[in-house]
C-alpha cells in the first residue's frame, strides 16, 4: 500500500470508527483511538522522510483514481509526498498528536468525546488531503473539508446558539474565499488544461503565459487564502471561532488550518514569483492584517480572543514574508508559529480548565503559584512569540523583518511596530493571567489546580520545540550557509528564490531593533500590568474603546453587507416575488374574469342555446367545406 494512502487512511479510519461506534465505546477507548490514529499517521510520515531526503527531487506519488474525466481532461484524485508536503504533514500530524493527547484529558468531562475525536480526526484527514493532494482539486477538497470540520468543531457545543452563529460565520467567510479559489482554478484549467501541480506550475515557470493571466490567477487564489488564513477583510471569523473547544482553537485556528493559505502560496511559488502585482497586494494586505490584529489584541480581555488576534496578526506576518518573496521564511514562521501558538492555546486551555471554564483575564491573576508548569510553558511561548533572542520566534520573525527591510522600508517600519505591539499584548496577557494578585470574585484561588500529565506533557513538548524550533532554519549570519529548511525546500521551488543576505552591520542593526522591540514590550507591560490588583482597563473611551470593540469591523460588515442582503431578501420576497410577480401574472385574472363573464352569457347551461350553436356550427363547417374545398 502506498504510504500516502496509509497516512491518509489512519485519520479517516479514526473518523469512521469513532463516528460510527464511538458513542458505544468507553470514553478512554474512543479518545485514545483518535489520538493513536494521528500518531500512526505521524509515524508513517516520518518513516517516509528518508525516502524523500536522499533524493533531491524525490517524491512519492499516488494516483488513487480518476475523480472525473471531461473528454480527456482528467481530474484525478492523486497525491504526492514531496519536500513541501511532508514538512506540512509532519507539522499537522505531529502537533495533531500532541493536541489529541491533550484533548483526551481536556474533553474528559464532555458528554460526547467520541464525536469530538471523530471530527478532529476528520479534520486531520482533510488537512492532509489539502497538503498531500498533487493538484488544485484535491487541495480544494481538503480546503473545503477543513472548513467544514472547522464549522463542526466551532459549533461543537451545538446547544449554544451563539456558538452555532460563530461556526456559520466561519464557514461562510471561508466560502467567500473558496469562491475566489474556485474561480482561480477555473482560470487555471482554461489556460493550462490541467490542475496538476506538476503540469501547471512548470508551464507557468516557463514564463510564456501572459502576465495578466498569471496575476489574475494569483490574486484569485490569494482571495482563497485570505478567507482561510483570516486576512483583511475576511478575518473576523477567526476570533469568533474561539467558541470551539480550546484544542480545536490550538490545532485548527492556530497551528494548521489557518496556515493553509500560506501553504497555497508557497506551493504556487512559481506563479507568485512571476506576478509582482499580486505579491505587492499580498504584502500590503498582510501588513495591514498584522497591524490590525496586534492593535485589537492590545485591548482584549478574553484569553482566547487575545491569542486569536495574535494569530491573525502573525498570519499577517507570514503573508508579508510571502509578499516580499521570502517563501522559505514564511514557511519557517508557519512552523515556529505552529509550535508556540499551539503551546499558547493549549496553555490557555489549561488555564481555562484550571479556573473552571472562565476565560476573562480580568478575573484571573497570580495563577503562577497554582499552575507552575502551565506558567512556565506559557512563559516560554510568550517569549518565543515576542522574539526573545535565540528562541524560535526570534529567528523566524527576524528573518521576515530582514526580508522586508530589503524590500520596502515603510513596510519594515510598520511591521516593527506590529512586532512591538505583539510583545506588548503578549506580556500583558501573561502578566494579567499569572502575575499580580488574584482578582477572581466568584471563585477562590485555592480552587485553581494544575492540569494532569496528559495536558502538561504536550505543553512541555511544545515548549521545548518552541525553544529549539529556530534551529530548523538558522540564519545565514550564524551558519554562513543556508538554513536547513531553506536547503530542504530549495528543490521544490521552480523559480529560484532570491534570498537576501545582508552584511553583518545591517544584520546587527536589525537584530538590535528586534531585541529593542522585545524589551520595550516587556517593560511597558511590566510597568503597566504586573502588579495590577484591580481589573484591567475595559477600554471605555477614545482609542482604547475602538480597540476593545475591534474597530467595529463586525458592526460595519453587518451594516454594509449582512443587513442589506437580508433586507434584499425580505424585499425581494415580499415585494417582488409575492406582490409584483404574482401580481403581474395574476392580474390577468380580472381580464379572464371579464371574458369569462361574457362567455358565461353564451355558456349558460341551457341546452337549447347549445343546440343552436351546434347547428350553426355544423352549417358553418359544412358550408366552409362546400365553398372552400
Amino acid at each position, binding site marked *: 500500500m502506498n504510504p500516502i494512502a496509509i497516512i491518509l487512511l489512519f485519520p479517516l479510519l479514526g473518523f469512521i470508527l469513532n463516528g460510527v461506534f464511538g458513542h458505544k465505546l468507553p470514553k478512554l477507548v474512543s479518545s485514545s483511538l483518535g489520538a493513536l490514529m494521528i500518531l500512526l499517521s505521524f509515524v508513517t510520515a516520518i518513516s517516509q522522510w528518508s525516502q524523500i531526503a536522499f533524493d533531491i527531487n524525490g517524491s512519492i506519488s499516488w494516483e488513487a483514481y480518476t475523480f472525473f474525466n471531461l473528454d480527456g481532461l482528467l481530474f484525478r484524485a492523486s497525491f504526492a509526498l514531496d519536500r513541501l508536503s511532508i514538512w506540512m504533514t509532519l507539522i499537522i500530524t505531529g502537533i495533531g498528536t500532541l493536541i489529541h493527547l491533550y484533548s483526551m484529558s481536556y474533553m474528559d468531562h464532555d458528554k460526547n468525546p467520541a464525536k469530538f475525536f471523530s471530527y478532529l480526526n476528520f479534520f486531520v484527514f482533510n488537512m492532509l488531503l489539502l497538503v498531500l493532494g498533487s493538484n488544485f482539486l484535491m487541495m480544494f477538497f481538503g480546503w473545503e473539508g477543513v472548513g467544514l470540520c472547522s464549522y463542526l468543531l466551532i459549533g461543537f457545543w451545538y446547544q449554544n446558539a451563539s456558538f452555532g452563529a460563530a461556526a456559520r460565520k466561519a464557514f461562510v467567510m471561508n466560502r467567500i474565499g473558496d469562491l475566489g479559489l474556485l474561480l482561480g482554478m477555473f482560470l487555471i484549467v482554461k489556460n493550462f488544461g490541467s490542475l496538476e501541480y506538476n503540469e501547471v506550475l512548470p508551464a507557468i515557470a516557463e514564463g510564456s503565459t501572459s502576465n495578466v493571466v498569471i496575476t489574475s490567477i494569483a490574486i484569485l487564489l490569494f482571495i482563497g487564502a485570505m478567507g482561510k488564513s483570516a486576512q483583511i477583510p475576511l478575518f473576523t471569523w477567526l476570533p469568533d471561532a474561539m467558541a470551539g473547544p480550546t484544542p480545536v482553537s490550538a490545532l485548527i485556528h492556530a497551528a494548521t488550518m489557518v496556515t493553509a493559505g500560506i501553504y497555497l502560496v508557497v506551493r504556487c511559488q512559481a506563479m507568485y514569483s512571476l506576478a509582482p502585482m499580486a505579491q505587492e497586494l499580498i504584502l500590503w494586505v498582510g501588513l495591514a492584517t498584522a497591524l490590525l490584529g496586534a492593535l485589537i489584541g492590545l485591548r482584549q480581555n478574553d484569553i482566547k480572543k487575545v491569542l486569536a488576534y495574535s494569530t491573525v496578526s502573525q498570519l499577517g506576518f507570514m503573508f508579508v514574508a510571502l509578499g516580499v518573496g521570502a517563501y522559505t521564511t514564511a514557511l519557517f514562521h508557519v512552523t515556529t508559529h505552529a509550535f508556540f501558538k499551539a503551546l499558547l492555546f493549549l496553555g490557555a486551555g489549561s488555564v481555562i480548565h484550571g479556573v473552571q471554564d472562565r476565560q476573562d483575564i480580568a478575573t484571573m491573576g497570580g495563577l503562577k503559584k497554582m499552575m507552575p508548569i502551565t506558567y512556565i510553558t506559557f512563559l516560554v511561548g510568550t517569549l518565543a512569540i515576542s522574539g526573545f533572542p535565540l528562541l524560535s520566534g526570534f529567528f523566524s520573525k527576524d528573518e521576515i523583518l530582514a526580508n522586508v527591510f530589503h524590500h520596502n522600508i515603510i513596510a519594515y517600519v510598520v511591521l516593527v511596530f506590529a512586532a512591538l505591539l505583539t510583545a506588548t499584548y503578549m506580556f500583558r496577557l501573561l502578566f494579567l493571567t499569572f502575575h499580580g494578585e488574584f482578582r477572581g470574585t466568584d471563585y477562590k484561588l485555592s480552587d485553581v489546580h494544575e492540569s494532569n500529565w496528559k495536558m502538561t506533557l504536550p505543553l512541555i513538548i511544545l515548549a521545548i520545540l518552541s525553544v529549539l524550533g529556530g534551529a530548523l532554519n538558522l540564519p545565514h549570519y550564524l551558519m554562513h550557509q543556508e538554513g536547513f529548511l531553506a536547503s530542504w525546500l530549495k528543490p521544490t521551488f521552480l523559480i529560484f528564490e532570491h534570498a537576501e543576505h545582508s552584511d553583518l552591520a545591517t544584520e546587527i542593526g536589525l537584530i538590535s531593533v528586534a531585541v529593542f522591540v522585545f524589551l520595550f514590550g516587556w517593560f511597558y507591560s511590566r510597568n503597566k500590568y504586573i502588579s495590577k490588583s484591580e481589573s484591567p482597563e475595559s477600554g471605555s473611551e477614545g482609542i482604547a474603546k475602538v480597540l476593545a470593540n475591534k474597530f467595529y469591523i463586525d458592526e460595519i460588515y453587518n451594516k454594509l453587507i449582512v443587513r442589506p442582503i437580508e433586507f434584499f431578501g425580505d424585499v425581494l420576497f415580499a415585494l417582488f416575488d409575492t406582490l409584483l410577480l404574482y401580481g403581474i401574472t395574476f392580474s390577468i385574472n380580472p381580464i379572464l374574469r371579464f371574458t369569462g363573464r361574457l362567455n358565461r352569457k353564451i355558456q*349558460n347551461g341551457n*341546452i337549447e342555446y347549445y*343546440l343552436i350553436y351546434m*347547428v350553426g356550427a355544423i352549417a358553418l363547417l359544412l358550408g366552409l367545406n362546400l365553398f372552400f374545398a
Partner: protein
Amino acid sequence: MLSIFHSLEISHYIYLSTVLFSIGLFGVLFRRNAIILLMCIELMLNAVNLLLAAFTEYMGDMQANGQMFVFFIMVVAAAEAAVGLAIIVMVYRNTRKTDVSFLDQLKD
C-alpha cells in the same frame, strides 16, 4: 317502381327529406316542450329514413342495405322514444314542467 314515376329523380327525394329534416330541426330549436322536441327528433329520423329508402331504390341494391338501416333506425327510435318519454315523465314528476329551458343545470 311504378312506371308512372319513371321521371322521378333522386334529387327530388333529397330535397324532400332535407326540407323535412330542417323542419324537424327548426322544431327542436324552437319548441320548448320536451315531448314536442322528441316528436321533432322522430321527424328528423323519418326524413333520414326516407332518404335511405330512396337511395336503396336508386342504387337498385338487392341487398337492400339502405332499408336494413331504416329498420335499425326505427328500432333505435323506438327505444329512444321509450326512454325519452320515461325521462320526461320523471322530470315532470319532479318539476311539474316539461319545459326544457328549465333544465339549465349544465352551468356548473
